[in-house]
């Protein structure tokens, strides 16, 4: 790979092939996004033509205006629901994870490993598998069709706990101990010393929690009944199945659903990648 070869033409050939493969792969990944957006801003009749028009003949945002003004389809409300649900789930997930990670990494309460395994065990229970149990629990708690009924199940994500816990384990203890000797309360140590030092892991966990809560479809789909409570992902499916939305309307909703997570990810990719790869290096 890094070897110096005397034949320059061969090396050039290798480079062309490598860039060609990467370029084609990147195009296959990126094209569907381009095609989605293009299909929402071209004139509707152009969407249904059997010709390959890579560029729209005319750019218009009429479909966005139409959808935002549609009384049957409260898109702005869906968007707001998505924001409330994903920020709520992120906050609950990260705060509970930080508290537990601090308690288990900085203190050794009797029975600590029991709590650790109880948290970790939830990784084996993805929401898709406990639909029936979850439905009955949320129903019994009278949380059907409420924000908290979606936020709390979505806040269960032990991966983020592990991310923060492992990071805290790697921090030196001297600062905590010094602060305790100086008479600081436990929560003061947590808030003023441990949390600032754990910032990179907390950022990563926050982003991963937000990205996955925003994307989740199954839990809100199961636990909502009225359109006013739908997040975007469920609202988009409702629009297609119940309101018989056109292709262009469905794609416009998909675009509105996609852009926030793409933006957040592109702006914060460093933390997202470090969160994904923490603990994933094996060798």
């Amino acid at each position, binding site marked *: *790979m*890094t*070897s110096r070869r005397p034949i320059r033409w061969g090396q050039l050939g*290798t480079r062309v092939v*490598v860039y060609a*493969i990467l370029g084609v792969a990147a195009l*296959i990944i*990126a094209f*569907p*996004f381009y*095609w989605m957006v293009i299909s929402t801003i071209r004139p509707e009749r152009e969407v249904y*033509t*059997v010709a*390959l028009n890579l560029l729209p003949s005319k750019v218009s945002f009429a479909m966005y205006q139409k959808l935002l003004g549609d009384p049957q389809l409260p898109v702005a409300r869906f968007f707001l629901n998505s924001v409330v649900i994903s920020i709520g789930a992120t906050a609950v997930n990260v705060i*509970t994870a930080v*508290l*537990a990670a601090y*308690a288990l990494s900085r*203190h*050794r*309460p*009797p029975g600590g490993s029991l709590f650790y395994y*109880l948290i970790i*065990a*939830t*990784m*084996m229970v*993805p929401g*898709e*598998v*406990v*639909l*029936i*149990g979850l439905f*009955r*629990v949320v129903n019994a*708690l009278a949380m059907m069709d409420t924000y908290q009924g979606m936020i709390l*199940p979505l806040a*269960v994500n032990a*991966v983020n*706990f592990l991310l923060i816990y*492992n990071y805290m384990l790697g921090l030196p203890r001297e600062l905590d*101990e010094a602060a305790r000797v100086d008479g600081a309360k436990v929560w003061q140590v947590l808030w003023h010393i441990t949390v600032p030092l754990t910032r990179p892991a907390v950022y990563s966990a926050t982003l991963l929690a937000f990205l996955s809560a*925003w994307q989740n*479809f199954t839990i809100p789909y199961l636990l909502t009944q009225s359109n006013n409570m739908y997040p975007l*992902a*469920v609202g*988009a499916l409702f629009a297609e199945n119940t309101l018989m939305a056109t292709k262009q309307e*469905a794609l416009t909703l*998909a675009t509105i*659903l*996609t852009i926030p997570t*793409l933006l957040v990810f592109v702006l914060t*990719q460093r933390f997202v*990648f470090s*969160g*994904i790869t923490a603990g*994933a*290096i*094996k060798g």
Partner: protein
Amino acid sequence: MAESSFMRPAGPALWTRMFQERTAYLFLTPIVLLYTIFSLYPIAQTFELSFFAAKIVEQGPFVGLKNYRDILAAPGFHQALGNTLVFTAGSTVIVLVVSLTLAVLVNISWVRGKTVFKVVFFLPVVTSLVAVGYIWKWMMDPTYGVINVALSLVGIQPGPNWLSNPHLALWSLVLVNIWKWVGYFLIIFIANLQAIDQSYYEAASIDGAGAWSQFSRITLPLLRLAVILTVILGIVNFLKAFALIFVMTQGGPAGRTELMATYVYREAFGTGQLRFGFSAAASMVLFVMIMAFTAAANRFGRAGEVAL
């Protein structure tokens, strides 16, 4: 504090230590309550219900193993199980080969724009499966879809019915699933590639080893654990596939794309019969499959990657 008891195992009595650590218990309370109520209790409930003739909130009479006998006899269950295995195995193998290949290429020292490639390949990972489903359903439209329009330009006409041909539909979903997840595994592979000591490659190239033998003799053996972990993560992730199928095919045509997770949902909520007990039994089968693979993942290191 806990440190002292750590250094002196024969420390104060248990109840004294528990009292000293009362703040730690307080900090553990929220997560324990949350995860018990919304994850552990629901699976326990699903397990319990699988022995009852339950309908939504009514528990119904105890029926022993009847639900399990019923799912074993149900053709729909066998079809969903078979489809799930094909979908999971196909997705895992192809995703692995594609993402490892791309990771090795992106990681070549002279390749420019590494971050751009990583970001682009990762875009589908952060895209909602509902949106992914819409985009691809539209691109795979037999008449107006851009794929068949492009195929017709090179003389393939009419193009395949990607999602309504019973032999093709499941593989079309595999294709979309691969598109969605390649970037995730690519990022894990790149991180592992970067952890390999470069001096191995330098020594090998001094000995005259070419690119391929460097890859097969150095890279692959050193990535062995990462590959195993990735296979398991892929399996666990793909076994529970739900939204993609729900949006793109609803399990059709003729149940050819029905997977375990969608089958469970449909039996409980979709058919109008609300057979919660039956569906709970099917859930338990899926749960045991996922649990087995997660346990395997934990054997190969921290399973902190079953994210998103």
